[in-house]
């Protein structure tokens, strides 16, 4: 089995599904690139090169470059999904949901319910989230919480190449709208990824590390932060169980609760701002359903209630790190 980066894993997932199903199309700005210009075709292959080569393999009718019109992109994808295609639309940065949220919030998410169960909307929206690249306040947010809040939407936040491929293939074959979050600073992270197609079911969290002293729930890039913290804690003789949510909607409540019932202690690590976040959501779940077994306050390690700062020094302070996670765990696992 070959090592592949998250970039390669996602590209491979798209390739396999486009080859398997003619209804799968990729839509977005510069998903190929070079349209209407004198240089190369497929000049970008997505701003991060994730869709590179798909244009050559499947051509313009399946890899669709668009004007800078996210509302039209998302709505076109939603309308196409409701009428027979399986579009994978690229939003580029999740921050741009601000200009096109209606087509997800009020359209794609609600078709099935509003239309009395008669609609199917197999739409996938790929987007980039997260800090670490100095992209500042409008290109670094973690907005998966807002999508998780919307009934009718599924939300995926993979943390490695293996999961990214399996979850994306699942998302494309899924009959509901799925928002797929990719961390912009993780595309080059590589691990073992099979060449063939495989799916990872939604709503099944991954226990990255077993431990009986404290449960650390994390998602996306924060899973690696949590794992690093767990190592530091192990050195102090504290065994942390690290849970990667993989999907926030559906949420694997069972795995979280079972773990906390064992450890009695919970730390949640979320790169997002704290208010109405996934961190708060998981804390509330446990405070409601595992209270009797809880032996300490639930700690959330998140970004502060501020926009993402530009300066690298400030951004480093803004982002949760292993030290803060370990510290939070020590405070309650004492």
């Amino acid at each position, binding site marked *: 089995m070959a090592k592949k980066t998250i970039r390669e894993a996602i590209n491979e997932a798209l390739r396999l599904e486009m080859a398997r199903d003619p209804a799968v199309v990729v839509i977005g700005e510069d998903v190929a690139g070079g349209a209407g210009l004198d240089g190369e075709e497929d000049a970008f292959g997505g701003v991060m090169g994730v869709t590179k080569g798909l244009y050559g393999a499947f051509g313009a009718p399946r890899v669709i470059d668009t004007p800078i019109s996210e509302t*039209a992109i998302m709505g*076109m994808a939603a309308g196409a999904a*409701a*009428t027979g*295609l399986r579009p994978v639309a690229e939003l580029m940065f999740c921050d741009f949901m601000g200009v096109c949220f209606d087509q997800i919030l*009020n359209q794609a998410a609600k078709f099935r319910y509003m*239309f009395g169960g008669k609609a199917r909307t197999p739409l996938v929206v790929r987007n980039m989230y997260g800090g670490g690249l100095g992209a500042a306040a409008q290109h670094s947010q973690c907005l998966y919480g807002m999508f998780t809040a919307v009934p009718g939407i599924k939300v995926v936040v993979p943390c490695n190449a293996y999961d990214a491929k399996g979850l994306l293939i699942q998302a494309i074959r899924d009959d*509901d709208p799925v928002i797929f979050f990719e961390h912009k600073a993780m595309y080059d992270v590589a691990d073992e990824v099979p060449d063939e197609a495989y799916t990872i079911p939604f709503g099944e969290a991954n226990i990255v590390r077993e431990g009986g002293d404290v449960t650390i729930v994390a998602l996306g890039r924060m899973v690696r932060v949590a794992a690093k913290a767990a190592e530091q804690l192990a050195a102090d003789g504290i065994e942390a169980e690290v849970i990667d949510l993989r999907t926030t909607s559906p949420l694997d409540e069972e795995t979280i609760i079972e773990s906390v019932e064992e450890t009695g202690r919970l730390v949640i690590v979320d790169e997002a701002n704290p208010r109405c976040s996934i961190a708060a959501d998981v804390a509330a779940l446990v405070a409601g359903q595992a209270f009797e077994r809880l032996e300490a306050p639930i700690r959330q390690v998140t970004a502060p209630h501020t926009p993402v700062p530009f300066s690298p020094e400030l951004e480093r302070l803004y982002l949760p790190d292993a030290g803060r996670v370990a510290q939070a765990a020590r405070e309650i696992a004492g």
Partner: protein
Amino acid sequence: MQIGRDDLIAAWRSMVTIREFEERVASEFATGDMPGFVHLYAGEEAIAVGACLDLSDTDVIGSTHRGHGHYIAKGCDVEGMMLELFGRKGGLCGGKGGSMHIADLDKGMLGANGIVGAGAPLIVGAALTAKTLGTGGVAVGFFGDGATNQGAVFESMNMAVVLKLPVVFVFENNYIGKGTGVDYAVGSRDIAARAAGFGMPVEKVDGRDFFAVHDAMRTCIARARDGEGPSGIEALSPRYYGHFQGDPQAYRAKGEVEALRAEHDCLAIFRARVVEAGLIEAAALDEVQAAARQLVDDAVRTARAAPPPSAADLTTDVYVSY
């Protein structure tokens, strides 16, 4: 224009069914037994029917908050809609959608929409499906004069032109958006010309004249089917009722609606034309209208007798699987 007798009868049936439906909904809503908000299409029948007459179930339409007329013109079930408006079990959306979300995907009716302008990208998507899968279908979107100022509509026109998609934009200019006049809200004061600036032909027609609408749409639909890309029409016709039921229409001149009904009603215009041209005899038209009234009356009786959705329905249909 040459339209066969059967098609003329079908068109008349659609137009009078819409009128009978809307007039009846007005009175039913007034009883207080019909929940939510309803926006009535009476007065604009010729637009929906002229636009949809040549469409089949493989063609898709996107509607607005004022969707009853588009729904009937597209051949969807009248009783199913009446049940839905009353929020009853058996309603076309199981009582979960109501007037503002009336839809029938099997018939290519992609839904009314409570978000002004939001249907535009959706029908562009339906057109993308038709082009990508080669179904030969076209997508027709309806938009009010007010909706033409929404970013979603502008972006969609450009997108349809760029991707050369089989879309027809139907701008229903009833010269009012809620309580604001089109000449105030549309800075250019010309919806068709502004739309044409996006790179597609847009023809302005009298929306009260079924034949004018149908002629213009025939050209647009043919163009779309031939792979020549999007186009549009701006059809002018007033609405007879308030923005929503209960709206006193203080923004309109006294007697404005009465005059419009008396002098330029689209049904009267159609009737006069076909009778004078000897295409259909008045009696036949009356028969069709009586049948339509009966259909609506039966629908109301069925709807009023129908049970509400069951409690279990609250949490179903959120996802295909979760």
